[in-house]
């Protein structure tokens, strides 16, 4: 019997899957119907136990192409029903083995809809997932030994440790500050012909902010406000070089401009969120994964303008600061997983904004 215990005492039982181990993290849910491998390997899920709302996960196995980083970052994986087999011409293995090898526990067979509704009303919270024979007291202890997500600076933990060249190209030179970057961001930029250099999250602006046509601040895990070092470095570059942001990068840019960030009750995670692009008026269906949000008032005070709004809850999804040459979005234009409606941002708009034609 496998268990998922939440910090408020709520308890779910199910069948174990993946690794026979115990992990703690923030329990969050994702409503994507496909793309579990991309979710698992997205560094932004570091220290999170991910509940997939889809009824069946694991059906098509795993493959080399769909990994968004070199490993699974999620702390645990939860679903109504995981597949034992993989059925796809692309598959190189099963999800079961993949989780097992990565020492990530999974649990299925529980009422995930009840769990999701609980998270929806009480908010994302600390939890422990266990495939081991541990007492409930022990499990509870583990939960409370874990500090939670708020105030956590995690980008450094998932970032590359050394600077590397991702792709050579001649359309311009982009430096990516890696707070947990997803591969598909790099792939799309490379596809557009840019030269891509990737820098560790703790790099000083003097390193990643010079000798390039633009700096892209990547997605990543944790509480953005706690990344004081990164915010400081980014602030020092405002107005000096075009700054592009995705997700955590967007939050850092907001903070650098003096805006506040706040935690959403249960975040946005999925591939179906409608976002209005104020410039074109069009609605794009976006891929999302964030638990924190930038307060638009601060952005506007700093002279920025809102460029994207979430149509479900009206939260800020992107802004532009023309004078300081800042452009960023909260959602994931690189998709992977999710709809590719906004890929044009990375392929065109960002580059044009940075003067790369």
């Amino acid at each position: 019997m496998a268990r998922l215990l939440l910090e408020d005492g709520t308890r779910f039982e199910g069948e174990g899957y993946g690794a026979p181990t115990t992990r703690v993290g923030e329990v969050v849910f994702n409503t994507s119907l496909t793309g579990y491998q991309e979710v698992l390997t997205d560094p932004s899920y570091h220290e999170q136990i991910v509940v997939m709302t889809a009824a069946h996960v694991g059906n098509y196995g795993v493959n080399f192409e769909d990994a968004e980083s070199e490993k699974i970052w999620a702390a645990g994986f939860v679903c109504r029903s995981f597949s034992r087999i993989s059925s796809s011409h692309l598959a190189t293995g099963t999800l079961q083995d993949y989780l097992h090898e990565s020492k990530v526990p999974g649990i299925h067979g529980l009422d995930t809809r009840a769990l999701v509704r609980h998270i929806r009303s009480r908010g994302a919270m600390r939890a422990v997932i266990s495939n081991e024979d541990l007492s409930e007291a022990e499990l509870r202890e583990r939960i409370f030994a874990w500090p939670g997500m708020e105030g956590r600076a995690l980008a450094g933990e998932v970032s590359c440790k050394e600077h590397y060249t991702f792709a050579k190209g001649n359309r311009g030179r982009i430096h990516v500050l890696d707070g947990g970057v997803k591969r598909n961001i790099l792939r799309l930029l490379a596809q557009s012909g840019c030269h891509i250099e990737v820098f560790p999250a703790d790099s000083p602006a003097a390193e990643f902010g010079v000798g390039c046509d633009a700096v892209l601040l990547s997605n990543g895990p944790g509480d953005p406000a706690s990344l004081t070092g990164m915010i400081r470095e980014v602030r020092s570059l405002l107005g000096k070089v075009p700054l592009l942001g995705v997700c955590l990068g967007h939050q850092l840019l907001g903070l650098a401009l003096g805006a506040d960030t706040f935690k959403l009750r249960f975040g946005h995670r999925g591939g179906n969120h409608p976002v209005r692009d104020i410039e074109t008026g069009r609605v794009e269906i976006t891929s999302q994964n964030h638990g924190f949000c930038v307060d638009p008032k601060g952005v506007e005070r700093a002279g920025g303008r809102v460029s994207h709004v979430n149509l479900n809850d009206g939260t800020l999804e992107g802004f532009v600061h023309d004078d300081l040459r800042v452009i960023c979005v909260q959602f994931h234009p690189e998709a992977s997983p999710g709809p590719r409606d906004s890929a044009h941002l990375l392929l065109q708009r960002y580059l044009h904004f940075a003067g790369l034609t």
Partner: protein
Amino acid sequence: MPKRTDLKSILVIGSGPIVIGQACEFDYSGTQACKALRKLGYRVILINSNPATIMTDPEVADATYIEPLTLAFAEQVIARERPEAILPTVGGQTGLNLALELFDAGVLERYGVELIGAKPEAIRVAEDRELFKAAMEEIGLQCAMAEVAHTVEEAEAIAKRVGIPTVIRPSFTLGGAGGGIAYNLEELREIVANGLDLSPVRQVLVEESVVGWKEFELEVMRDLADNVIIICSIENVDPMGVHTGDSITVAPAMTLTDREYQDLRDISLKIIRRVGVETGGSNIQFAINPRDGAVRIIEMNPRVSRSSALASKATGFPIAKIAAQLAVGLTLDEIPNDITQVTPASFEPSIDYTIVKIPRWNFEKFPGTGRGLGTQMKSVGEVMGIGRSFEEALGKAIASLEGGYMDSTGLSDAVLWEKIAAPTPDRLPALLEGLVRGFPTAEIHAISAIDPWFLERMEDMVRAERRFEKGKMPEKADLYAAKRMGISDIRLAKLIGISDTELTKHRENLGLHPVYKRVDTCAAEFESHTPYLYSTYEDEDEAGESDRERVVILGNGPNRIGQGLEFDYCCCHAAFAVREAGLVSVMVNCNPETVSTDYDTSDKLYFEPVSAEHVRAVVHREQPRGTILQFGGQTPLKLSHRVGTVLGTSPDAIDICEDRRRFNSLLKELGIRQPEGEMVATREAGFAAASRLGFPLLVRPSYVLGGRAMAICWDEFDFKAGVDEAIRVSDQHPLLIDRFLEGAVEYDVDALCDGEQVHIAGIMEHIEEAGVHSGDSTTVYPAIRLSAENRAEMEAIVRRVALHVGVIGLVNVQFAVQQGVVFVIEVNPRASRTVPYLAKATGIPLAKIATRIVLGEKLKDMGSLKPWGEGYYFVKAPVFPWRRFVGSDVLLGPEMRSTGEVMGVGRDFGEAYAKALLAAGLVLPVTGAVFLSLKEADKHEAPAIAEPLHRLGFQIMATRGTAAVLQKAGIPVRKVWKVREGRPDVVDLLKNGEIQLLINSPLGRKAQYDEAAMRRAGLRFGVPCVTNLQAALCLPAAIESMARGERRVVKLQELGEAGG
């Protein structure tokens, strides 16, 4: 963008009668569209020939025309109503085709009418295979390699290029009619010839075969601001090669990686933009090679479809309603999501459950035709199961089929393998039985190409079943595990060897009840305000509480011949009436095509099988005042003793009518005449009864629907065959053998009874003489051949029976009148198939009033029940699926085979009859030649048929015997050979186009083969064929009306205004 203000009134085109490939999903979509447009303030005009629809209720549109869906009649409606726009995308292929016809004929231009939703160019690109293929190539997409052929020779040449097996698809036909897969050149020639005939533009597509590839569908929506979203992905369990309407399908897609799915999504966006569907929904079908992921575009429907209805029910996203709103200029982000209320419609539904759709077939009604499934759709209905896993959804879908699911336990392994390999309706049961016997999934996959993932899940179900043993009551844990797999109580009971009643009781005693989850479009991310529910065995229940009393209404389950849209119509009205009475209406049904399973129709929708197990669970959860059974046809009646309190006619009263012995003694007690008859249990007893009663006889099994295996036996030879078949079908129940009332005229009477008073709602007369199933009869209201005495007698009988039995609500009594003597044929203590038709003909909402009675009101408090439309005639005509069941004869009989109905309204009988026939697709000639061939007993009527036709200028042709009678009567006639009598024979003349109308009352067994050949030829060459004497006698009136050339259209609402 705000809604368009330059439009004031909009014409909505319905899809006409229920036919295979176009069923009540278009009542659902059309009704939604009409409601949505009216809510936006537009004046809605509706044309639809189908009276059994909710959409043709006078309250749904501002102006409702139940008229033939033809150019001439549509033009009349346009001329009279002058709409500024037409919404052609919610009426299926029929709606699109009619809209294009109006455009091509210049009608739209003449009256300044705009097509909204889809423009003619877009419709053409999507529908014309050549244009579509070129368009796809232009945007870098690949369709299956294919070329268009206009002749058989061209087709052969193409087949040599794309390879055999080859798929043949005729252009512009419904549900792929006339298509098929050719495995050799001979087959190819045959299918192509038939396909060219059926295609209105005489072209077929000859296509590379992708049989065995995986098949997917995406439902796409676009608005005028070019926002495009995907509502739902659907994966077919049956791979390519089986029409998607005949495939078991699953949502969401199960075996695509995100990359693959997003590729399909991107392609779909490209396609809807290239084809140019400006607003609304489209459906795009894909084939994917399971070996390398290669993608082929199969087709695109630039309109709402059967799949979009399924997708709407599968996700809770009302595609047709939103499509209508988009057509008038609103954008997706301006429309709120009904279910969450706080988020806009511009999002993509996410679901945290699985749905499985299983089609329902009626092959048994069409002997002589194979059970093979291919590119031409054959199913007549479908069920949807919702569960938290694929297994549970599949199990619930199977439970929803009501035993319309073959028992394969008696088959040999070899036969099972055959049935797994070749797609037929038996494939799923054979597959499950194979898994029970341990057939390896790898081999099943190899032979069927069904994805291993589905097979693995089914194997899990079978594994859960293994824990059940004969004679051992199951433990709670095992039972819980099995229920989570969706395995029904019926199935488990069978494994244990007890009755399902016992098993259900055992489960309930263990405290094992399902919980209910909501279909909410968003996988619980937002709160749902709409109780659209399904059962599952989990922890949390979301059904919610109501402070008002609940009333449960049972739907009719999957559509099938004999039980279809008419009953859904009644169930919807029941829900409306319950709601109007201030109570909470709770609907239980499992048919995704219907209006009753629209979450808007009832206060609470339980999308569940209409079976004892699932209905009991709903009753347990809701604790209602009671359950209403009488509107869902035969299906709910069978549950009368198992659902707690029944509202309306009591279970015992139902039994009196359903149990032949009790019914017979009742009639005897009341002194009411019925055809002499006996009940027998064995073949021997049957023969003894036959010799006592004398021929002709009517043989029928008890407890069957739609006259299944009913037969008229003229002599012992017929009787032998009839008895054997009836015994086979009746499953231990006794057979009924009645004297057949030859030449009698039949009547259907629908009535309301409150226990104290009876209201005769209407007496409808069958045009054909007795012997044709009432559902297959052409019917006229008011009756035209009924004497005042007979009428009075019928009314008196209905009153007596209804009061005596204790009917509370609706009752239907069928009569036959033979030479002025009235016989009761049967009494149905429930809403009948004719209720919606009669409601349209009289303007009285019968089902609603019946519901009020069921809830306790009295007839005397109902106000005036005076019918409208005095001076009008209303003819209902059936529509048959002959063309899909090649090889089966077109003769009418006591077994029902029509799929749908139309209504014609006229100032005289001839006009109404002509319109009904026209609406049913029977285009009566107004000039040319009529061929008559009547059986001996009918010959004396030949002059009565021929004389008026001669007067109308027709040339009369007849076979020898019939010709002699005509000559004697002084009517000029040309003698024609029957088949095999000499050449040129009647079939030759048919082929040469020398005959415009066939009238043939069948001679009986001996000549049947030749006559069938003639009737089939008529069908093939589009020559109408009338096979019934009484119908033939009525024809001249209809032809005369057609010849007058009047095309008067009648607005339903004005019948009411006229004061009726």
